[in-house]
Structures are given as structure tokens and as C-alpha cells.
């Protein structure tokens, strides 16, 4: 299949998908769908509409601001307690689903997989929930004395009923001397998780960054870096950390997977901020640059090509000693990853992949697939912005279908039309495609495997993709008595 055929097929798929919509929705969705190429003229990566209101009445894959703040940014900070403030559901549905790994004694000095909720009832809605919140903070301090702070994560009703959670937090902080942060991340704010990331970043900026208590006696070295925007899903930040340490750098903070409050507070001591998830933490990286003069750089630890590229870029911020050491690290691991590629690439070569993930991976993981000889023919973001799409362009390997805020109907139709060999998206989509007999990998949770960041992790990634693509189970879909060959 030549690139032109692929592109025309993609364009045709878009046209067909749009036909199903009523006029108003069709007009809207048309602006979110397109194609782009690695070379030449401006394509969808430059022009696509993004970060806009989702069309009502569709099966959107998006989450909400609360999910972005509590679920992504604040939730993984392990020694703080994060209250889901409002009705019971939000905290329950988001409990333990993201695989933010951490080391600690849960319930005693760390709390990530637990669910703390103010469990609003009708009375709290009618009379307000501030008193209950105050009491909740006190009960937490009594029963969980080793918590290093509390964050209050607002659910929808809080902003609507006019509670003043900022005041409650302020009073509690004053009375106890403990960090208490109220985050107004009500689910109805914004159009997706994305605003929740931003609000969460702003609260870190306003409440954690000014806290100098941990910075006062901190002894710096010239090689101090902070990992920003790694949520340690399946241990990603740990496999990242290993490499950075081998390069000779000192990782003083991990944000926010496996993070402690102290690591947030000492991050301004870093010489360089390493930003993995640009979408969710570019705000605070920019702030630290302005406020503390810390440069930041984006890196990509998916697949050996991108990892090596990133390592060299990181090393360029430091002296020759680091640069030499980095080359040694690269050489050491490249031998291994070359062997991984030699082993798995023959089984994966030329397989077509369609991606649909959140705000970073739709571009970041492309390189890892391409390292294995797999070809990404479609990608899109649940909640990316224009700058994410612009950054995507450089990762494209061929004509690629670009879909922003795609809903389940669109994804299903695109897949039927483009017939990829693998779909890599989220749990809500997983079983839809598996039922069609298509291998699928969850790319939010690493499908209960991982880590996928770094060199060691690439071996896992390759093994998992082989597992997905080459499992005998996909051969059983058709019964032996079904003789007709479908759409050969």
C-alpha cells in the first residue's frame, strides 16, 4: 500500500464518518479530523481544532477536571491524603485504577490507593459542606497522624453550591501547621482532564512552591535534576531514574509518581527540570523557569531511538564528564535494545497501529513502535491542545489519520476502514476492538504490565506487543465451520 493510497483511504474514512452526524455536529467534528504527513505542507497537526467542548450525546472517551487534578497530578503524591470532596462516586470510580506505583506502608505513612471522601448527602448540598470538610480534616489528622499534608479535590457540586473550601483549608493549615491545599477542580470546569492538570499545577505553584522549609538546608550538587510529569505508572519513573543516575545525575524529585511532599517542595533546587508529560505539567515547569530560573526540557523515554536522543539532549546541559558517562550508558543499553529489536522486530515488522490516548502518548510512543518496525497510521488525543498536535508532526512516519477528541463511534469506524493490526488505547475501548478480533493494548495503564519508560522498559514493551500481536487466541475467532474468507 503506497502512501497515497493510505492517505486517500484515510480521507475517505473521515468523509464517511462525518456522514452519520446531524449537520451541526458534523460541522463541528469535521474540524477535529484530518490527515497529516511527515513532510511538506501544513496538515492536520497544524490546523486541527482541539481542547474544545465535546459534542453532546456521543460516547466521549474524555474525563473531567477532577480526574485531571486528583487522578493525575495530586493523587500520586504518596504521603499526602487527597480528599474527594463531594458525593461518593468520583473517588470510588477513580480508586486504584491508574497504577501509580509507590513504596510505603499504605494507610500509615502513604495513602495513594485509598479513597478518602466526604460522601456528601442532601443536607450537605442544601446547607453547604464546609463544616463537614473541617471536621473531615481533623479526623484525618487524628487517625492518620503521619500524613504530610492534605489536598481537597473538589467534585462538581462544590463550586455550584458556593462552599468556601479555600477558607476551610487556610484555617486548618493555620491551626495545625500542616500543608492543606484546596483545589477547585470541579468536573464541569473546562472541556476535559486538561483544565484539571492546569488547576492542579496552579495550586502547586501557589501553595507548595512558596514553602521553603525543605529547601533551607538542602545541599545542592551541580548534577541535580527533577523528573516532572512522570506518574510512575507501572514503575515508569523508577526505570527512568536508573538511567539518569547511571549518567551521573542526581534525581532530587519525582513529580508526581511515587512523590513525597518534600520532593515537590525541593524541586526548585534542581538545575534542570526534565519534563515527560508536557500536557499535564508544562505549566509548573514554566513557572519554575520564571520564578527560580530553572531551565526545563521535554524528553521522551519510549523506545531506544527516542531515549538515546533524549539522553544526549539532557547531557548537553551538563559538563563533559556527564556527556562521556552518558555515551557509556547509551552504549551499554544499546547492545541490549539492539538484541531486543533483533528478537522481536521480525515478528512485528510492518504491522499497522492505531493509537488513541490522552495528552502525551499519542506522539511519544510512536517512536517505540517504529523501533520495532511497526507503522503508526492513526493517532489522536483525548485532551491535547494545539501545541501537542504541532509537536506530533515530527513523530509521524507516514500519512497518518489525526483525530481529536474522537468518540467511540468514530474510532470504531476508523478502525473498520483502515484495518490496523493493533489498536492501542484505553480500557473503555479495549473490549470493543478485541471482540472484532483485533489485538489491543491499553496505553494508559500499560495493560497491567510495564514499566514502558527507558531501556529496560523497552524490552517489556516489545515483549508485550509481541504478546498482543502474536498470541494464538486471535486465530480462534473464526469457527472451523465458517468457510468463507471475509474481505480477503
Amino acid at each position: 500500500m503506497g502512501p497515497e493510497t493510505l492517505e486517500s483511504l484515510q480521507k475517505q474514512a473521515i468523509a464517511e464518518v462525518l456522514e452519520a452526524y446531524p449537520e451541526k455536529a458534523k460541522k463541528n467534528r469535521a474540524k477535529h479530523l484530518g490527515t497529516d504527513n511527515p513532510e511538506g505542507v501544513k496538515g492536520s497537526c497544524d490546523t486541527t481544532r482541539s481542547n474544545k467542548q465535546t459534542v453532546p450525546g456521543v460516547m466521549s472517551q474524555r474525563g473531567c477536571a477532577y480526574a485531571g487534578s486528583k487522578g493525575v497530578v495530586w493523587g500520586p503524591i504518596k504521603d499526602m491524603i487527597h480528599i474527594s470532596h463531594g458525593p461518593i462516586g468520583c473517588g470510588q470510580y477513580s480508586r486504584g485504577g491508574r497504577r501509580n506505583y509507590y513504596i510505603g506502608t499504605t494507610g500509615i505513612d502513604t495513602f495513594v490507593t485509598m479513597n478518602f471522601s466526604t460522601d456528601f448527602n442532601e443536607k450537605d448540598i442544601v446547607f453547604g459542606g464546609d463544616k463537614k470538610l473541617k471536621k473531615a480534616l481533623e479526623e484525618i489528622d487524628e487517625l492518620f497522624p503521619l500524613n504530610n499534608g492534605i489536598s481537597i479535590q473538589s467534585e462538581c457540586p462544590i463550586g455550584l453550591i458556593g462552599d468556601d473550601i479555600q477558607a476551610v483549608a487556610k484555617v486548618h493549615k493555620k491551626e495545625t501547621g500542616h500543608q492543606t491545599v484546596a483545589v477547585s477542580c470541579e468536573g464541569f470546569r473546562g472541556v476535559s482532564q486538561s483544565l484539571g492538570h492546569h488547576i492542579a499545577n496552579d495550586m502547586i505553584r501557589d501553595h507548595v512552591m512558596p514553602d521553603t522549609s525543605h529547601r533551607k538546608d538542602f545541599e545542592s550538587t551541580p548534577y541535580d535534576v527533577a523528573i516532572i510529569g512522570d506518574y510512575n505508572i507501572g514503575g515508569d519513573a523508577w526505570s527512568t531514574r536508573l538511567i539518569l543516575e547511571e549518567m551521573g545525575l542526581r534525581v532530587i524529585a519525582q513529580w508526581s509518581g511515587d512523590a513525597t511532599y518534600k520532593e515537590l517542595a525541593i524541586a526548585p533546587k534542581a538545575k534542570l527540570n526534565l519534563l515527560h508529560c508536557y500536557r499535564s505539567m508544562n505549566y509548573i515547569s514554566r513557572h519554575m523557569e520564571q520564578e527560580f530560573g530553572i531551565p526545563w526540557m521535554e524528553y521522551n523515554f519510549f523506545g531506544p531511538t527516542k531515549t538515546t536522543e533524549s539522553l544526549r539532549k539532557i547531557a548537553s546541559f551538563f559538563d563533559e564528564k556527564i556527556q562521556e558517562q552518558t555515551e557509556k550508558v547509551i552504549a551499554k543499553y544499546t547492545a541490549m535494545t539492539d538484541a531486543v529489536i533483533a528478537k522481536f522486530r521480525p515478528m512485528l515488522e510492518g504491522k499497522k497501529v492505531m493509537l488513541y490516548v490522552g495528552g502525551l502518548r499519542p506522539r511519544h510512543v510512536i517512536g517505540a513502535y517504529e523501533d520495532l518496525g511497526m507503522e503508526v497510521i492513526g493517532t489522536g488525543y483525548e485532551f491535547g491542545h494545539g501545541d501537542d498536535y504541532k509537536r506530533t508532526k515530527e513523530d509521524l512516519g507516514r500519512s497518518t489519520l489525526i483525530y481529536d477528541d474522537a468518540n467511540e463511534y468514530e474510532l470504531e469506524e476508523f478502525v473498520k476502514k483502515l484495518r490496523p493490526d493493533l489498536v492501542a488505547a484505553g480500557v473503555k475501548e479495549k473490549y470493543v476492538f478485541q471482540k472484532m478480533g483485533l489485538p489491543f493494548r491499553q496505553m494508559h495503564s500499560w495493560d497491567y504490565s510495564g514499566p514502558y519508560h527507558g531501556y529496560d522498559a523497552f524490552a517489556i514493551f516489545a515483549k508485550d506487543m509481541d504478546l498482543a500481536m502474536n498470541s494464538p487466541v486471535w486465530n480462534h475467532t473464526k469457527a472451523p465451520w465458517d468457510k468463507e474468507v471475509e474481505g480477503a
Partner: protein
Amino acid sequence: MQDLDNIVNGQKLFLKPEYQEVLKNKKEFEGSMGAINPAKVEEIQKWTESWDYREKNLAREAITVNPAKACQPLGAVMVALGFENTMPYVHGSHGCVAYFRTYFTRHFKEPTPCVSDSMSESAAVFGGLANMKDGLRNCNALYKPEMIAVSTTCMAEVIGDDLGAFIIGAKDEAEGELDNVLIPNAHTPSFVGSHITGYDNMMKSILEQVSTEKTTVDEERINIIPGFEPYLGSLKEIKKISKMFGDKIVMIGDHEEQWDTGAGEYKLYAGGTKIEDLKGSINAKATISLQKYSSIATAKTIKNKWKQTYETCNPIGLSGTDAFVMKLAELTGKEIPEELKQQRARLVDAMQDSYPYMHGKKIAIWGDPDFLLGMVSFLVEMGAIPTHVVCHNAPRKNWEAEMRAILDKSNRSDECNIWPGKDLWALRSLLFTEPVDFMIGNVYGKELYRDTKTPLIRIGFPIFDRHHLHRYSMSGYEGGINLLTWITNGILDQLDEETKDIAETDYFFDSVR
């Protein structure tokens, strides 16, 4: 580094010495007590096991920790998926819907269709009418449902959207597109009750708004409302039993097939109660609800508005199934079929085969009110001691008394405690101060197992970390055998665990039990 012949994922990767070193290095920068002062962690951990902590923990008023319940719209979505070609539609933010779909999908390992109308700030200010107008039309165009079942989130409830008026308004402006779609709607505020309340409200609304034409009573027709039933096998078995008594015993809200479709093609809608059958519900002779406390409001509609015979049964365990079967016999005037008599005899036989292992075992159990009534009844029938019965979403009226009556059938009822309104962090204390032999509950018991070492037998909702349990029945006589199998073998697994030490305990590591 990875060994190419044995590539390991995080489970074993991080146990390699270089990663252990990394984790050790990280501690230098950490502020958690485990990093600063591990002895203090141990001290507090010990304290959380004490009576002092228990008293403080049980006295909590404001903070809920590790709940065992969810919110209303989740139940509403389940109801909607129990009807043929029906799309659950949540009037509110799409974030909620992402959560509902994820939650069900993780439990059933199946897709969960559901749309929202993506309400946002503008809707918070101006109301969600505009979202409803576009949303219903788009939903109809894309997914071509016969029925759209509209429920609400807390956001829509707080701003006070008028669902009925909105839907009429949306229909008026849809240029006829929505004329042939049924659009029942229910208010399902997340800050009232729990997921079973939402089940109830949606079921009531669908029955009231769709089954409206009262004609003559069909003396053979009986409705069965299953309730919030996470065990698809239970739905299948109830239908099988019903079928033995007549062809016109219809399950209302039958979500079995929706969450159990085969490989080969993806179907958006699968199975479900036929809309025709739903419409005829009002003319049935009687309705049986299998979850009394998931259908309190629905019961009022059936009894008071429809003036229909309304019965509740709880066919979990032996006596619960007996009552259900006898009720069917009574309502249909038919004899209890030989097949069921045999099934009952087989269950009793199996119970008599296995009883020594469950007898006298102290058990902590949690879950929804009706699940607990059925399960505790079975435990008592087997001679087990339901030491802690935790019902986070316990109904205010009658439930506790009903549970007490079941416990009173145990000759050790004085050792049995009911804990209405308590969460799983409260149970953690109880497991330390008044320990039990086994726990029965959902996936959230996993952390209790880790902390207290009390073995967990997974029965309940949700179960994310074990596969295919939801396919089995826990209702009826055959479901009783499943319960017996899970619990007995759970106990035997633990017995092997405790007796497997070589030359220490393995004299009791018997091949025959």
C-alpha cells in the same frame, strides 16, 4: 539490565539489585515517615490495630475512608442496559460517564455503552437545555437506539435542570428525528443514597413512563426485576427457573447479554428486555423483585399506581431460593417441577458434603443490602458465623431488623454484629480487634487482606482483579453450589497455605479433605 531470555516486567524488574539501589537512593529525598523514621511507621501501624484506634475510627463522622458503595447514576446505567436497543444517557459531565463505563468494563471485561451530553461551565450557568437538545439528536443519529434512558449527575441536580421539560423541548426542535424514540428519564442525584438508589429511580421511571397502557390483566404474565445484579450467571439462572413455570415470566431489566457477547463482531446493543415486554409490564398479574432494597420506589409504583401484586424474594442460598420457587409456584398455580426438586436435593447434598469446613468459621462480609441478606442467610444455613456484616449503603428502614432476624437463626447469633453505614477502613479496625477467619467481599478487600492477613474470598461487586467470576450464578440452587464451591475451596486453599511448611506443619497437608 533485562536478560533477553527472560524479559521481566515491573513485578520482578524492580527487585533487581540496580533498581533496589535506585529505590534506596530515592529515600534520601523523600519526606514520608517510612523514609525518615521507619520505627515510627511501625509504632503507628501497631496503634491502628488497637482498641483505642478502633474507638476513634468507628466514631468518625465526616470523612469516609475506603467506601463500599458508589453513586446513583451507575445504577441507572445498569438499568438502561437491561433493555433492548437502549442507550444510557447521562445528563451531566462526560467525566462521570467515563468513570461509569470504566467501572463496569473493569468488572465485566466487556464494553459498556453510555453517552453523556458533556455539560460544562456554560451549562452550569445557563442550564443544560442546549446540551440536551444537541445531545439527544446526536445520540439518536449515531447509535440509533429504540430507547434513550436519561439519568442525571449531581451537577445537573444541583443546578436544578428540569428533565421532563428539557426532553419535550428537545423533541420539539429535533425536526421529527426523536419522534419514534422512547426517552424515559430519572433524577439520580449522586448525593442521595447509592448506586442501588439510582437503579431504583431509573427502573421506576422507565416503568412509569414507558409501560403506560393499562388494558386487561394477563393472568399468566409475571415480571421479575433482578436489581443491581453484577453476576450475569444469576440472571441466566433466574430466567431458567422462571421458564419452568411459564413462558410469560419476563425479566424486566435483563442486562445479561449486554455484558456477555461473543468474539467475532462488536455489537453496540445485545439482548435486553424487549420494549414490547416492557410496555406490557403494567398488565402483568404480579411483579417479583429480587432485591427489595434496590426497588423501594419501584415497589410503590407497582403496588400503588399499577395496583399489581408485588412480591420480594431473595434467591441467594437455600431458603432464599426455596421461597422464590414457592412464590413462583403459588403465583402460577403450578407444581414445583421435578428438575428443581432435584437441583435442590443436589445443593443440600453438596452442603452436607462440605459443611465441616464452613461450620464455625467466623466471617466478615460486606456489600449491598440485598446481597448481604442472601449471603448471610446462606452462611447461617452452613453453620458459619457472620461475625461482621458491613453494609455501607444500608437502608434506614427495616434492613437491620431483617438482617438481625436472619442472624438470630444462628446458634451463635450473639457473636454476629451488623455495621450499617460503616466503611472498609472501619472494618479494618474490627478485623484487628475482633478478628475473623475469612472475609467475603469485593476487590477492595484486597488491601484488608494485605493489612490483616485475613484471607479474602471474592464475592461481590466490583471484582477487577480476578477474571470471569461474574459469569457464574450465585442465585438459585445451582448458584448455591457455586457459592459453596468458592467458599469451601477458599477455606481449603487457606488450610493448604497454613500446612505447607516442610517438616513443620505438613503432616496435615492432606491429599484428601
